[in-house]
Each structure stands twice: as C-alpha cells, then as structure tokens.
C-alpha cells in the first residue's frame, strides 16, 4: 500500500524529510558547538557562528540525502537518480533564507504590534476592574500577544514546508523512478544504505575521530570555572620558596647553635656555682 507521490501532501513530505534530516545532522553540529564553547568561542555570534554554519553545510547535505532517499523509498516506493542531498540542500537553504528573512520582519513586527494591542486591552480591563491583580495580568497579556504571533510563526513555517515540498515533488517528478521491489525489500534497501561497505574501516575511523575530538575537548576545556563568583577569595597560592643555599643556612644554624651552647654552658656554670654554695637549701 504505497501512496502515489502526487497524492502525498507536499507539507507532509517536506516535514518528513526536514525533521529527520535535522535530527540526523544535529549531533555532529552539537559536537562542533561544544568544542567552540569549550574553547571560549561563542558559537551563536561572529566567527563562531560562521564556523558552525560552514561545518553545517556538508553535514546538512549528507543528512538530507540520506533521509530523503529513505522517505522516497519507504513511503513512496521511489528510487531517485540525482544528487538528492545537494539539490534539496541548496533549494531548502534559499527558501529557508527567504522565509527566515520575511519571518524576522513579520514576527518582530507582529510582536511589537501584539504587545501594544495587548497593553491596550489590559488598560481597558484595568478601567473596568481597577484591582486587576498583577500575576493574572502578566499571563493574560502574554496570551494576548503570543497566540497571534505563534499562529503567524506556524503559518510561515507551513509556507516554508509547502515551498520545500514543491521542490521535493519537482525533484521526484524529474528524476524519480518507481521501485519494483516489495515493501519489505524496500525497507531492507534503505536499511542497508546505512551499512558501509567496509564495516571494520568505518568503525575504526569513526572511533579514532571521536577519540581525537574528545582529546581536543580535554585540551580546550577550562580547568577552573569560566565564571568565577565576584566575591570568591582564591587562597594565596604558596609561591615556590626561593631556592635556599643550604651552606648559608647551615652556617647560620651552626652559629646560633654555638651561641646556644655557650649560653647553656654559662647557665650551667652559674647553676653549678649556685648549687655548690647553699648546699642544703631545701631543708
């Protein structure tokens, strides 16, 4: 029971491809973001963001290719003879940039207007109920402007999905061929597409890459907190004592010892003289 490509809603198709492609690429991008963060580079702005976006390109092309082929094969029974990942990536990216650009202005405009309208409505409510409590006011105001903004954002997302779905359908129409395999064989096909030809090589190289990434993480991870508490007094680190000259120290000790012995001797002398004089003092 395979639905024909023409009858599958394009939004559904776009969602199936982009959702799984997102999660397929996400862990790899996260590794890069984590490394940047550990190195003290903010991955959400400036050079960090550019690095992250650059790394994302091959990851996204690979992820889109893998997941789109799976969706085509499993749900639509189609084999595609085209660079699926690259085609979908640039089309999705162009559309994404377009829709994201429009969304930025549309949503931020809607937020401004929404907040003003919500504040106006709250003002009206306050005229009727002068003791409208603050906690309720916050929630009502929040709902008043977030509901329309959320709907707008969802609509924009749907527009992107619809457009992306059209791209996918065009790709299918131009280079898709109906697979003759049964449902079971198709499941097997896309499943095997994930198994590399040389299993041992793949696992070893992946493992080695992960070990290298981990070591890089250890090298950049700060040893002490990057955000110390303003009032925390670090204990004064005991500076390495200046290398002492044992000869000097020894001479000093010997001198003082000689003095001590002289004092002791004189004390003992005095004591013995004293004890000789009054021989039986106690009794």
């Amino acid at each position, binding site marked *: 029971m395979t639905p024909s490509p023409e009858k599958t809603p394009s939004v559904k198709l776009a969602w199936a491809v982009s959702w799984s492609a997102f999660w397929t690429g996400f862990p790899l991008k996260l590794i890069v973001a984590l490394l940047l963060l550990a190195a003290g580079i903010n991955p959400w702005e400036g050079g960090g963001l550019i690095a992250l976006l650059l790394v994302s390109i091959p990851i996204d092309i690979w992820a889109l290719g893998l997941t789109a082929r799976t969706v085509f094969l499993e749900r639509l029974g189609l084999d595609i003879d085209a660079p699926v990942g690259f085609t979908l990536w640039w089309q999705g990216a162009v559309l994404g940039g377009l829709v994201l650009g429009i969304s930025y202005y549309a949503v931020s405009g809607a937020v401004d207007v929404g907040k003003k309208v919500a504040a106006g409505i709250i003002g009206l409510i306050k005229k009727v109920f002068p003791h409208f409590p603050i906690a309720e006011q916050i929630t009502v105001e929040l709902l008043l402007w977030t509901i329309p903004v959320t709907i707008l954002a969802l609509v924009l997302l749907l527009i992107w999905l619809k457009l992306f779905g059209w791209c996918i359908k065009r790709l299918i129409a131009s280079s898709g061929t109906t697979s003759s395999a049964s449902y079971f064989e198709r499941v*097997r096909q896309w499943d*095997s597409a994930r198994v590399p030809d040389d299993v041992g090589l793949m*696992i070893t190289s*992946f493992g080695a890459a992960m070990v290298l990434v981990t070591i890089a993480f250890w090298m950049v991870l700060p040893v002490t907190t990057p955000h110390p508490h303003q009032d925390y007094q670090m204990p004064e680190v005991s500076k390495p*004592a200046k290398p*002492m000259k*044992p000869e000097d*120290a020894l001479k000093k000790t010997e001198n003082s010892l000689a003095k*001590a012995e002289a*004092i002791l001797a004189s004390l003992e002398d005095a004591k013995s003289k004293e004890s000789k004089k009054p021989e039986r003092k106690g009794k």
Partner: protein
Amino acid sequence: MMEHMGLQPKIKSTVRCLDGPIGEVSHVIADPLTLEVSHIVVKSNGTERQVPVETIRSADENTVELSCKSAQVPEFPAFVRADFLSSKEVEIPHLEDRIHAEPGEIFVPFPELERSCARRTFFTGFTTLMGVLIGFPFVWPVLQYVMKPMYAPFDNRWWKIGNTSKIKQEDIGVQFTFKKSFRDSVLQREEDKNNWVVKASPATLKQIYQHGDITFTDNVGNVVWVNRATVPYVAYSGKCPHLGCGYKWRSHKTRGQVFLCPCHLSIYDVAGTVLDGPAPRPLDVLPIKISPAGEIEVIDIEFKAGKREQVRIA
C-alpha cells in the same frame, strides 16, 4: 472449517490427510505479533514441513485432520531450523503462557531485518563503540578532579615545637607535641602533632650520621635543608616507619631504654636503628634548627611507611 484463533494442536498427535495418516506434529510455529499458532511442523517420512493452520480441518486430543490430500503434503515448504528462533532464544512476553508445545518447541520466524550479517556486525560494532565512547569525555576531567588534593606540594614550613631545656639528659627520647594549623580543603584546622627529640651523645651522633649529612628535598628535588653532625640534637618523625603508628620511649626488659612501637612491636635504639620487630628502616630524621635561646624548629616532613628507603609524601 474450524476456528483457528487460539488453536492448540497437541505435539506428537497423528496428522491425517483426507486419504490417511502422513506423520505427526513435531513443533508449532507462532506469529510473534498475534501470539497465535500460524503453522504446525509436520514430521513425515523423516522430513519436517510447515503446514499453515488454515489447512487444519479439525484437531482433537490425538489427531490433527488436514483438509488436503497426502500427495499435496510435499508441496508445503520444508522447515529450516535456521529461519526460526525457539521461544528459548527470544523474549516474547506471554508466548509460552498462550501456547504449549512440550515436548516439542514453539518457533517464531527469524526477523527478516536481522538476517543480514554485515548489517548486524555494523550495528553491533557501532553500538559497542558508542557505548565505550559515551563516557570518554569525562575520563580526563574526572581523573583530574579526584586527583586535585592527592599530590599537594610539600609543606616546608618550620614549626616551633619547644625548647631544648626540656631535655635533661643525653640519649633519651623526649616527646615534643605542637599544634599544627593548616588549610584542609575549605576548613582551617589545627592538629596535635608529635615528634621525638634526642640530645645525642657523640657516639649516637656518629651512628646517626654514619652516611654523612642528611639532605631533605622538596617535590621537584631542590634541597630544602641539610642536617649536620655538628648539631647534637636530632628530631625524629613521630610516625613509625613500619606502618605509621605512634611509637613511645619505653624501658625494655633486656634492651633498656628504647623507642617501642605498640602496634607491631618494632624496637629502635636512641639512634633510630631497628633493634627488633618488622620495621623496614630506621626512624625518620626531620630537618632541625635550634635558635640561640634553644628553641627547636622542625619541618614536619612525612615519609611513606613500610618502605626500605625514605619516600617523602608531605
């Protein structure tokens, strides 16, 4: 046709076709999704064949009647053990409660997706690798974390422990206790420590310095202090070099006045030499300084117990 749901053919019962008996039921095959019997395995002339339950006309205690002729039986697929899993080899809840097959076995089809060997090897290998790697980023930070206080730099501070005037006689052990205050993680603590000081006679001094001056170093090997035989006072660490107990100055029945450790009965003479007992090395001498007024100062060095040679640890 009979109701197939919940059918429970008896193992070993005779299987009859429309035209006579052909063999017996040896095992049953179940559907892992519905937990119902899907096939019976019929053993006929030494070969086992899978017969779908739809073919069964009726079944009672001893016989299973099939709705086909004996000539049709060879058309049923042969039962290949490798294509199936026994209920002992998989975990399917309630399967064995629903279907009884002793003395035979219940079989379920081997999942098609698990048949590809390369695939299984790949996912098994990958899973094992990830399982090993998942905690890997923690290894170094955790090691450093637990090691933080373990290799603290040596404390080379001098402690005033008392005055030589306390020592009235040569060659006897005199205990000096002092309060040592230090930072112990977040706590500022004070501990009672104890050392022994001996005013050595020339003979004892000669014995102690028989290998020359005694040098003390810090963790990187820099010389911190040198004790010389010109100083007649010798301080011993209060820690027994055997296993770290606190020893005493006691009189011994045959050996006279000695240092005696109550834990394992190590006995040392006034020069710290082992006279008897399990101790592996003489008492540990500490760096000592005597001020003109006779104030004794020592560095409270700690050595590892139980070793032949001295290993400084604090």
